[in-house]
């Protein structure tokens, strides 16, 4: 079985598992939507203010709650399951790519649904509509690669579920800044290319780091 067939197998397994458990759809997604509801209660229900902060808030919530999606295997898998998967002979790098791809699919769904909730609740103007799908795709790719890498590093150690967000949150900042600034620059009539390129480079670095570290980490 080739590398990509192995990765596809892992992706299917993770998505089937998600379909059965509904963790993202029934837990993380409503949790993110509640956060979008809570913020106006804390800062005030001033419509112009909410319209102004809506986009940035959306990306911040995507980063913070999206981490929960990309690390769900950390809490859902035991060391014995990991060992068994390693014994099947599937390439560790293919496992990394497969897991990240499944997280990517779930993150895209998460971002689209939360984006619609943000537009409705905060009355955010959809400027630069053509850029939004590109940003959603890059953020989903970057966050899934980063979360999967962090989850592989921490694995099933003590406090793993709490530690992975601590590692992911600071490292996801290039994606957060890129996503918010790309839309802001566009609003001001500038070019978003530099920000988009920065996000792509960050994502590629994460992909390379994840694939290269997959094999040493599987020895655990």
């Amino acid at each position: 079985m080739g590398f990509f067939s192995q990765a596809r197998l892992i992706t299917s397994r993770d998505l089937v598992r998600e379909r059965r458990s509904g963790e993202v759809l029934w837990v993380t997604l409503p949790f993110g939507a509640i956060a979008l509801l809570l913020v106006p209660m804390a800062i005030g229900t001033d419509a112009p203010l909410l319209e102004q902060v809506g986009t940035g808030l959306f990306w911040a919530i995507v980063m913070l709650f999206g981490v929960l999606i990309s690390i769900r295997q950390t809490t859902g898998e035991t060391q014995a399951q990991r060992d068994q998967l390693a014994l099947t002979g599937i390439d560790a790098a293919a496992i990394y790519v497969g897991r990240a791809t499944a997280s990517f699919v779930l993150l895209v769904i998460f971002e689209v649904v939360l984006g619609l909730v943000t537009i409705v609740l905060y009355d955010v103007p959809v400027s630069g509509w053509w850029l939004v799908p590109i940003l959603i795709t890059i953020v989903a790719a970057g966050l899934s690669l980063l979360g999967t890498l962090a989850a592989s590093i921490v694995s099933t150690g003590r406090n793993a579920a709490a530690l992975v967000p601590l590692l992911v949150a600071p490292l996801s900042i290039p994606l957060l800044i890129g996503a918010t600034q790309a839309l802001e620059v566009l609003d001001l009539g500038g070019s978003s290319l530099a920000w988009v390129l920065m996000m792509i480079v960050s994502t590629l670095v994460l992909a390379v780091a994840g694939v290269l570290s997959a094999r040493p980490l599987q020895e655990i």
Partner: protein
Amino acid sequence: MTDPTPTSTSTTWPWIVMAVAGLVTFVASMTVSPDAVQGQLSRIMYVHVPSAWLAYLAFIVTMAASAMYLWKRDLKWDRRAAASAEIGVVFTGMALGLGMIWAKPTWGVWWTWDARLTLTSIMFFIYLGYLALRRTTDDLDVRARRAAILGVLAVVQVPLVHFSVEWWRTLHQPATLLRPEGPEMATSMLVTLLIAVMAFTVMYVAMMFKRIELARLEDAVLIAEQASDGAVAGAAVTTPTIGRGTA
């Protein structure tokens, strides 16, 4: 893997070196003339800048030692990486704290959303995460392997922090020492700053020596505890209590 060998931590020279280095920095920074504009406040710089330098140095050493561990798989490299990261975190915190104390009277605020400040705080949290990661398992090899990968990846923060003042428009002043055109500073201040930087570097070496020594002992204790904690076959089987048992 190299088994840690318990050694004594009674070596006194690092303590003496640390004390002398601290004294040299104190004397040098207190005897130089104050800055014409900032006055006495400028003396903070003689500790703030060496702290930031030490943070860079410590995290670069962490990266190099982590890479060496991944190559050689010898735990001595892991201990060096961890010791250096711990010292780096302390000095990053010190640089941030001193910067805030300086910023309040100078800029009017404790904190501003400046690229240098924000990226330094991110670097601080990433290495706190590195230290937290080391506490997730008691298996020395597993701990070393996980930490080494993060130690190599996290170093990307160092150039980001250093060049942030060049890449973004920031309130923080650009580099005055490590710049291609050479240092931009009055000679007396420059000499004092260089003395402080050298003293801090010597202090780092002494701290590393003591911390590595301590880490070796910690590992030895951990191994000894794990050896004594091993469950004996049948240990879970206890004598059944019949009736009310005995008092």
